[in-house]
């Protein structure tokens, strides 16, 4: 029997699960932001009434928390780099890419705050709930920076395509949110649009020399022993016999 939970050497199943749940969580958060904007814009048609959009917004957010829980637990269980449960909740204290992993912890904490205040909305009160809910617009960009800063698939076309598509969706959503109800609270709207432009522009400048540039693994703070064991210095999944056999040697 091969070992499906990856105690064997080589890329463990945990690591594959961490990467996949991370990218799915990014897409779910993106969907949640977009649905939230549709929700607050009171968009509805005869076929798609408001409660459907609102329900989808709630469900995708909850699903994102579930995926993030798996993302975190598998990252902790994967023994290739040492990430503790504390690193996943308390930002910037870990040993593996502390800043970029810390951003993930910040985004997760924000999301948990958003979800808990939403579940307890009746007790929190509408005003506090709404004020907390603005944090969503901080949560998403921080989550994207975490994806780009720690993700080992960022250089692959599919992950880059997912990230850029998510960015495009959220930029459109933020623009739509800023336009709905124009021109009341104009300063806030202009600040939102300005923030979106600065964030997108910053990414365009940073990506080529950051995660897409040379030696990002070292520069982002990967511990030396994790760097040494992979010849390409990035954690590129090398399909080795022992881990590949988990999938290929099952009876048909």
């Amino acid at each position, binding site marked *: 029997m091969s070992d499906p939970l990856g105690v064997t050497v080589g890329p463990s199943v945990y690591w594959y699960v961490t990467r996949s749940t991370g990218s799915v969580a990014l897409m779910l958060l993106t969907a949640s932001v977009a649905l939230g904007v549709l*929700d607050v814009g*009171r968009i509805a048609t005869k076929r798609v*009434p*408001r*409660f459907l959009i*609102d*329900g989808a917004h709630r469900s995708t957010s909850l699903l994102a928390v579930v995926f993030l829980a798996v993302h975190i637990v598998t990252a902790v269980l994967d023994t290739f780099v040492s990430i503790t449960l504390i690193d996943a909740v308390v930002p910037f204290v870990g040993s593996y890419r502390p800043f970029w992993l810390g951003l993930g912890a910040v985004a997760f904490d924000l999301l948990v705050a958003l979800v808990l205040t939403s579940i307890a*909305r*009746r007790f929190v*009160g*509408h005003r506090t709930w709404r004020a907390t809910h603005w944090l969503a617009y901080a949560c998403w960009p921080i989550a994207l920076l975490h994806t780009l800063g720690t993700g080992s698939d960022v250089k692959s076309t599919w992950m880059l395509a997912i990230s850029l598509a998510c960015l495009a969706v959220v930029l459109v959503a933020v623009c739509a949110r800023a336009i709905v109800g124009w021109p009341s609270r104009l300063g806030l709207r202009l600040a939102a649009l300005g923030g979106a432009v600065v964030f997108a522009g910053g990414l365009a400048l940073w990506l080529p020399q950051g995660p897409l540039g040379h030696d990002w693994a070292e520069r982002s703070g990967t511990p030396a022993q994790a760097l040494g064991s992979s010849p390409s210095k990035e954690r590129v999944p090398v399909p080795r016999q022992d881990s590949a056999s988990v999938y290929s040697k099952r009876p048909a």
Partner: protein
Amino acid sequence: MPLELRINWIKCDAHGMCAELFPELIALDEWGYPILDPRPIPPELEAHARRAVAACPTCALALERVPRRPR
């Protein structure tokens, strides 16, 4: 004791989701604010009423057990 829907008119912002989810006893006026059917909620429709209450974006809708009014 029968259940009754209550609306906090200060909180209500005419989102209209209650009427989408519980059209049996909630209609909307021309500005999108709810008009409640004054009848007590039949037990078989209680689940729908609860969904409408849970969906209210401003927590303006509540479900209350009310003692029968004296005649």
